[in-house]
């Protein structure tokens, strides 16, 4: 039987070299020491019951809240405190006590498992301080850059706002100008329009006459008298089976075997739409003529040119003014759009607008254009894939500006549309540092920017073990 023995006394040799003896049960933090008084009944921390003190850490769970076994794995919900002198103290689930795995850097969690643990707290503490130091430097510099970015952004915003106001004033003038020119144009166009209409009417009449004549000519050419003659024209086949049977031909001819000219006139309307002959080419020419918008007779052409010339100038003037107005509208809209983005509480993300940042991996080139879109392009040829367009800030409630969400990218086979989450961390540089696809078609991009650097707190970077001393 391997029963773990109660161990009440721990001797701490702290980094300063002065041995300090503190009596407390294994796994209890200093903050709770008052609840564990030797030789007095122990009351479970949830108050559920009291037990003799020798049942604290006796490797049997008596308290429902696990508080009687802070130093053994007996309770399913217990927690063990390691001091980790030189590093930071921590609580681990008591199930990790003596499980053969070194969890506490001071090795105190493995006191009876045979696991060979080394005390790594000093090393960890040193590393952590180094990292924190580095982080602090980056944060400090980043935060300075951020202030600069904020200034720039505010300046830029002011400029843009006043620009919009200016432009809106100019636009008003331009609006008026356009209206004036429109009236001028419409007046100038009146004679032209009338002339056109007049001529069109005449042309329609002329066209009808030509058509009638052509039809007659065609009928004359087509005139035939027998069923067999008609049968040679397969295009007249009624049931489209490819041959014109005798019966079908007779049907077209109104039941007769043969017809004379006058009867043919009654047959002709049945077949003329399908009938093919040499005239059909002329027919095509004519239909081309008919469909063209304005026919130019010589007389008409002269008249029309004069009228048109006077209208053209008014038209050009008007169009020029209208174009200028449209361009101004676009500019205003673009600036307004830019101003409408949420560039952070102090507009610190403004500088990212209309910029793009690339990261090249072994297979792809990733391109992040903040507030616009993210794409992925194979390094060695192939088309670009949209990994999402700007959606929203989606960080946690306390700081939504730590994550960007880009959505509705190219669809995945049998899956969702691609989307990307961009995780922003404080850095001096503005760079994409990594990309990954943790879940199919859901990308994760890490991006450093000074814009998320927080004001450095005036923190003391010395080890966190004061509590234990």
């Amino acid at each position: 039987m391997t029963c773990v023995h109660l161990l009440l006394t721990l001797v701490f040799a702290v980094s300063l070299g002065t041995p300090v003896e503190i009596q407390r049960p294994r796994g209890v933090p200093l903050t709770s020491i008052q609840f564990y008084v030797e030789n007095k009944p122990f009351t479970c921390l949830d108050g559920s019951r009291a037990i003799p003190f020798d049942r604290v850490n006796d490797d049997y769970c008596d308290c429902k809240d696990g508080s009687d076994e802070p130093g053994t794995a007996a309770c399913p919900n217990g927690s063990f405190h390691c001091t980790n002198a030189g590093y930071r103290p921590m609580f681990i689930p008591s199930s990790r006590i003596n499980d053969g795995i070194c969890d506490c850097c001071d090795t105190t969690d493995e006191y009876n498992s045979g696991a060979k643990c080394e005390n790594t707290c000093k090393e960890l503490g040193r590393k952590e301080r180094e990292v924190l130091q580095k982080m602090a430097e980056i944060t400090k510099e980043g935060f300075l850059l951020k202030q600069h970015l904020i200034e720039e952004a505010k300046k830029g915003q002011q400029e843009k706002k006043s620009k919009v106001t200016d432009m809106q004033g100019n636009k008003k003038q331009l609006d008026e100008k356009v209206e004036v020119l429109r009236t001028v144009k419409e007046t100038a166009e009146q004679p032209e329009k009338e002339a056109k209409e007049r001529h069109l009417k005449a042309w329609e009449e002329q066209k009808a006459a030509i058509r009638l004549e052509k039809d007659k000519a065609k009928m004359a050419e087509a005139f035939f008298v027998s069923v067999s003659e008609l049968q040679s024209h397969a295009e007249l086949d009624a049931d489209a089976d490819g041959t014109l049977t005798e019966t079908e031909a007779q049907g077209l001819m109104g039941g007769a075997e043969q017809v004379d000219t006058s009867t043919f006139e009654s047959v002709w309307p049945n077949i003329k739409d399908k009938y093919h002959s040499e005239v059909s080419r002329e027919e095509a020419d004519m239909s081309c003529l008919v469909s063209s918008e304005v026919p130019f007779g010589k007389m008409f052409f002269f008249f029309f040119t004069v009228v048109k010339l006077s209208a053209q100038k008014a038209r050009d003037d008007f169009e020029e003014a209208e174009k200028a107005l449209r361009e101004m509208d676009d500019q205003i809209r673009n600036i307004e759009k830019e101003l409408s983005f949420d560039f952070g509480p102090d507009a610190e993300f403004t500088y990212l607008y209309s910029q793009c940042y690339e990261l090249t991996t072994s297979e792809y080139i990733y391109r992040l254009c903040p507030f616009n879109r993210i794409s992925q392009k194979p390094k060695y040829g192939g088309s670009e894939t949209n990994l999402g367009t700007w959606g929203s800030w989606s960080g946690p409630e306390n700081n939504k500006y730590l994550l960007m969400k880009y959505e509705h990218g190219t669809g995945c086979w049998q899956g969702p549309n691609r989307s990307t989450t961009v995780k922003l961390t404080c850095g001096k540089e503005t760079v994409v540092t990594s990309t990954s696809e943790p879940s199919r078609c859901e990308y994760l991009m890490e991006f450093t920017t000074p814009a998320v650097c927080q004001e450095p707190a005036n923190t003391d970077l010395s080890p966190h073990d004061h509590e234990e001393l």
Partner: protein
Amino acid sequence: MAASRGRWVLLIVLLCVSARAVDRSNFKTCEQSAFCKRQKELKPGQSPYRALLDTLELSDSRITLQLINDNNKVRLLLELYRLQGNMTRVKINELKPLKPRYEVPDVLISDPFTETLSVVSQDENSLVLSLGGKDQRLIVSAQPFRLDIVEGPQVLVSLNSRGLLAFEHLRARKDTISHKISSTVGSMWDSLKSIFSSKSELEQVTEQENVEQRTDEDGQIKEEEDKPGMWEETFKSHTDSKPNGPSSISLDFSLPGVEHVYGIPEHADTLKLKNTDGSDPYRLYNLDVFQYELHNPMALYGAVPVLISHSTDRTMGIFWLNAAETWVDISSNTAGKMMFGKILDFVQVSSEAPQTDVRWISESGIIDVFIMLGPKPADVFTQYASLTGTQSFPPLTALAYHQCRWNYNDQEDVKSVDQGFDEHDIPYDFIWLDIEHADGKRYFTWDPSKFPQPKEMLQGLMDKRRKLVAIVDPHIRVDSGYKIHNEILSKNFYVKNKDGGDYEGWCWPGNSGYPDFTNPEMRAWWASKFAYEQYEGSMENQYVWNDMNEPSVFNGPEVTMHKDALHGGWEHRDVHNLYGLYVQKATADGLVERSGGVERPFVLTRAFFAGSQRYGAVWTGDNAAEWGHLKISIPMCLSLGLAGISFCGADVGGFFKHPSAELLVRWYQAGAYQPFFRAHAHIDTPRREPWLFGPENTALIREAIRQRYALLPYWYQLFYNAHRTGYPVMRPLWVEYPDDVATFSIEDEYLIGKDLLVHPVTDEGATAVTAYLPGKGEVWYDVHTFQKHDGEQSLYIPVTMSSIPVFQRGGSIICRKDRVRRSSSCMENDPYTLYAALNSQGSAEGELYIDDFHTFNFEKAKQFVHRHLSFSANTLSSRNLAPDSQFSTASWIEKIVIIGGSQPSSATLKNADGTESALEFEFDSTLAVLTLRKPGVNAAADWTVILR
């Protein structure tokens, strides 16, 4: 990422027209399978077969007889064996086949032991043989031929009673060039032929003999008409050349008094097999079915041709040892309809009695069938285990929780998932890597950019006492830069196509070869590839998963290998269902060898056959995140367990599609109580590690997994027993309550061993389940509340999201390790808590099994602890079940919980050395639960606790 996956996406799009459900048209119906269609055209009636009793030969171990088909005069040889342990083996082959027919090797663990089969009586039309035991007789009726096994006045089973014995003899092809020319040019061709080939001369001789043999009865040759599909068969764009022509076999079995038959996995169907009249028969043909449908007799990934029949009178089994494509028809009938002749001298026939008729049809090979006569369920398990072996005893860690996904992308991903489990305080033992881990799907290698330092990764896991599984599939990328391919090529180990070249097909890596796993030399070579120095980057905490071993061939007929492909002298047709078993066997052998024979292997397989239980675990393949799939996982694993394969599980969460949080939680709760417990997900699905569904669901999943870990000692002991006896670990209720008809069709609850009854919640939004608690006079205790319920009742149980209805049988003692840690290895030396649930007589018993949890020393050196725990007359004691075994454990008894007892005035622990000590205890009088505090005795010791 996208580029490498582009290829298979395209493949899948091409192959699987419907992406949402199985494309049935990819798979044959019986009508589309030429031999099945031919066989099904034969209807029940008078059999043309006649036994020639004068050909009887009797030896100590068997009798033989010739059968003749009066229609075509072909003779068959019938062999009958009486096997030890109450079994009868019936073998039928052609007396003189044109060439040998395939007899399945390597499935039986040894030649079954025979017992003397003696002739009791004989007349002109029958032969009565004694099967020993309680007046058991085997009656051979000569004309029409049939076999009946009777016990006293009862017929147990009849063979060919419906006249469906049909044996397509091998024959020379009539429409070959030689046949056509010889009919016109005659002798000229014969002389030409003799110049070119001496072999064909030989064949001709055999052919003549065969014809002679067929004519000797009445001098008439009745040439059978060729039917479509006999010599060539085309399905979709694939042609099966069938150089050997028709070769199918069929035999019917009638089971009087039987209404319930089970087994013949793998099908996504009910536990109780359905009547197949009017539908396709159940099909056994290992296939990679994309997004399989539920409640369907279609073939799936594995096949075990074992059918179990059960009635209140008797449990029996039929083991049809044939590895070719097989169809099983099941119909209900009335007993007595087919009774006539000699048997009527023996039996009383009630024409009203129900009967189940079963007909087996296979494409090639011989009839080799084992009739396991029971009579109890446990007897059938023992009988089947004596033929094909028992469940391999897995290392304990394999019974713990497995976290899988297609794919964990890279080493970083593996590390962060591993950390995620610790951060959320959820135990797990294994993380799995699917096909993307290998370099270009070249198995035995690692993707150099995603897994540049596999050993570093494995060491990281080992430091947490955890393990990893990496996939190794049997399709080998054809690539002259790939060592494995080159070696197989140079050793000539690939399966051949019909023309003798290396068979190639499409699978994950693109063009692939398929090693011939039926070749023992090939298997030995394959096993050697798992040696640490061969498999670079592998370590002892890395195990293996064999997928796609049906084998899956994306561009093959029915997504598998062409039947005319060649494995040495045999066609793929003959060996198909056996291929997957060999793959897993060779892999498991490799894992044993790499440890110098010390460590127990763990290999998961998707394809399997009878005997696969000896090599590891199986799972139910590519299921989907649907409630129906969660439900069907129960009957699917129960059916597998009945057929010997206990180590079964379904992908928790469902492989395809995205489970709702509710479905995922329910699946974890169900999976925690199934033998193989692994979560898995398709690459296209969103991530679903247990902590991604909010803190409440994380807590629910954590609790389900913890329940699994606490019960690991019980699971381990059951697997030890399964390994020794062949009893399934996960059991249908009827196995333990064979007389309770109400249990016969239950498939929404089951027993783990005989002492735990589980009714998982498998309905969306369920607020209650109704569980049937079996056993008259039995009592059941809710394991969470200790509430007591009487047996033989349907119990309405309100449920919440945290409920997993589990009951412990009164009369049982279950050992748990209630200190759940982050992996099972971390719990190795932890103490046990004994849960003794008393029956109505106030007694209970159970077992405790302990060993080193991972080596073969339990077997080789008898290093284990096996204790019998019993409670009666207020005394609980632990007794050694294996006095000749030796093992010392650090584990001790931390607590004893006696459920359903009364309050004692004192509790005394008596140690083996006679010392006594008083135990403290608490008694909860409302639930009648007595808790004995900290007996502290070593788990391997003899001890007694006396309550007064």
